[in-house]
């Protein structure tokens, strides 16, 4: 167990001793967890309880993580295993796909459906029924997954395009052809647009009704993570030296002028997460800076974390009040937004 250290008002930090790959909050938002590069997961309460460690992927690497709606965690590893870890820390294997890394994972907004990529196939678990459905094979290894906000559609990115699966009619996907390697799909909050990153420093925004595709090319680096503002008017992505908001759907009509603010001279954005309750986004950079960006006034302020190592993952709690941050040197931080705002 590892105790928390208070860094400032509303900010706690833990030392986890391994690369935090992904962060997730429990269904009731009372706990956060990190998937660690040494096969463990670390779980800590939002009140600042000691970190507890469990080892669902002993000897391997834990690469993806989500909360189970009834409590506990689901994690995927490079051992090909999908494991359920109960709130008490008991690990049970749910499914195994030997030889594949279960690295790409997405959960529906209510947490009831979980999708995991295994090579060219996607496994979708209905967690209340305990059933599993296979989708695929896709054109290449699935590089990104996202559920539509209402949960009815699953987007899977891969080489050559995006496959949109209707989960109620899983016969054939709608295929959107986008040449090259696509990644990081993200639906707009109203579900009308789908944005994807692209290995070759580009972003595609698809108007799902008209299938019109807007391409944003020539970005400074690979946009590996995408996020939408709460009102759906702006799209953000990692790889930039500032917080950059692209206007959607305006981009389809005219030459889009992005709003850029909080310029970082020295570092690129490495992690990004938008809050789903308030118009805030968290942006983490390669020098360890984590910014809280306000997307109404386009201002940002840094959290008082120790700089140094890149931010590897960010995640907001479902209630929108807590932010989990992971740093590559094995630190984890928690921001309690309510506490921070009330204490100034």
């Amino acid at each position, binding site marked *: 167990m590892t105790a928390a250290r208070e860094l400032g008002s509303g900010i706690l930090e833990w030392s986890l001793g391994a690369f935090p790959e992904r962060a997730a909050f429990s269904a009731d938002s009372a706990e956060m967890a990190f998937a660690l590069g040494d096969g463990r997961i670390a779980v800590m309460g939002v009140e600042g309880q000691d970190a507890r460690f469990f080892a669902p992927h002993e000897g391997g690497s834990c690469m993806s993580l989500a909360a189970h709606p009834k409590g506990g965690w689901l994690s995927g590893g490079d051992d090909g295993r999908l494991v359920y870890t109960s709130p008490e820390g008991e690990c049970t294997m749910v499914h195994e796909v030997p030889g594949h890394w279960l690295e790409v994972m997405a959960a529906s907004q209510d947490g009831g459906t979980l999708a995991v990529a295994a090579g*060219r196939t996607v496994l979708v678990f209905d967690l209340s029924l305990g059933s599993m459905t296979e989708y695929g094979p896709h054109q290449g290894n699935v590089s990104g997954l996202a559920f539509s906000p209402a949960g009815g559609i699953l987007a899977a990115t891969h*080489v050559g395009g995006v496959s949109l699966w209707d989960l109620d009619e899983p016969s054939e996907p709608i295929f959107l052809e986008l040449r090259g390697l696509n990644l990081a799909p993200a639906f707009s909050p109203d579900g009308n647009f789908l944005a994807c990153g692209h290995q070759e420093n580009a972003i595609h925004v698809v108007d799902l009704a008209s299938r019109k595709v807007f391409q944003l090319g020539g970005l400074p680096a690979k946009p590996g993570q995408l996020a939408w503002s709460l009102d759906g008017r702006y799209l953000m992505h990692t790889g930039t030296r500032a917080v950059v908001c692209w206007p959607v759907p305006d981009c389809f009509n005219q030459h889009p002028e992005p709003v850029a603010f909080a310029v970082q001279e020295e570092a690129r954005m490495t992690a990004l997460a938008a809050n789903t309750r308030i118009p805030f986004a968290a942006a983490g950079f390669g020098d360890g800076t984590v910014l809280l960006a306000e997307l109404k006034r386009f201002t940002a302020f840094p959290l008082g974390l120790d700089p140094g190592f890149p931010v590897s993952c960010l995640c907001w709690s479902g209630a929108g009040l807590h932010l989990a941050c992971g740093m590559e040197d094995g630190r984890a931080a928690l921001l309690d937004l309510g506490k921070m705002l009330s204490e100034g």
Partner: protein
Amino acid sequence: MLPIPVTVLTGYLGAGKTTLLNRILTQEHGKRYAVIVNEFGEVGIDNELVAHSDEEIFEMNNGCICCTVRGDLIRMVGGLIRRKGHLDGVIIETTGLADPAPVIQTFFLDQETKERTALDAVVAVVDARHFQGQLERSAEAREQVIFADAVILNKCDLVDEAGLEEARARIRELNPSVEIIPATRCDVPLEKVMGRRSFDLLRLLDIEPELLDEGAHEHSHGHVQSVSLVSDKAVDFERFKKWIGEFLNAQGQNVYRCKGILHLPGERQRLVFQGVHMLMEMGFGMPWKEGEPRSSKAVFIGRGLDSLALQIAFRDCLVTS
């Protein structure tokens, strides 16, 4: 974090790459190496093409070769970096690849991969006895030597002095500056393979000036495409041979790769063909299993292919009854 050294290991089928890999992994060196062998090609015709050998092949029957390779490599290298403990190096085995360039490119074009890894060496294993013949048949064998900064000239015990000199001369012709390390059953000291620090980007840019040209891999303009042709009908071999010959003669410069499996009337075995540009190899493959539905498929990967024209031409080669 210090960048992890990466060794790219190439070598033509049967040259002894697996032997070398086993030596590296089983020697008492106290180092931790991760090996990426390709797990691709689970479906599609690649499996059938390689059924006779123990080699695996990169998935190439869809979309852009460089994207598939790069995407998968980035994902795997990224995953390895986060692993528990310290890794002393990563070995990437790249057999079956027409061109080691996409693998090398990955370590320069992807920002994250570039920051976290250091390309250490490109090592090619060459079969001293069969090299000459392989050069005549395969562009791969040639490219592997051109891109290498060390060649392990293996199976030296199977050739005489003259044959050895001949192989050396061939290698020198392709790559004058390469270090040639003679070996029998890949018995080379580990330090000749790992931790060489001999990768030379400038030399490669001399050979292939477009190696790191992002523009050369602009996909929105659709530079690489693939056309798949499938039918459950049999193929009239004479007609097919005539057509594909004429097609490759005329269009070969645009065809990076073509391959296929044909069902010929009354033939117990499947006919397998593969080609690179204007060169084509054909031969009988595995027999059809009893009750197995027989079909003919062909895949063309290239630039500016006329999909409709290919469909029509292929249909014209089918046996109608």
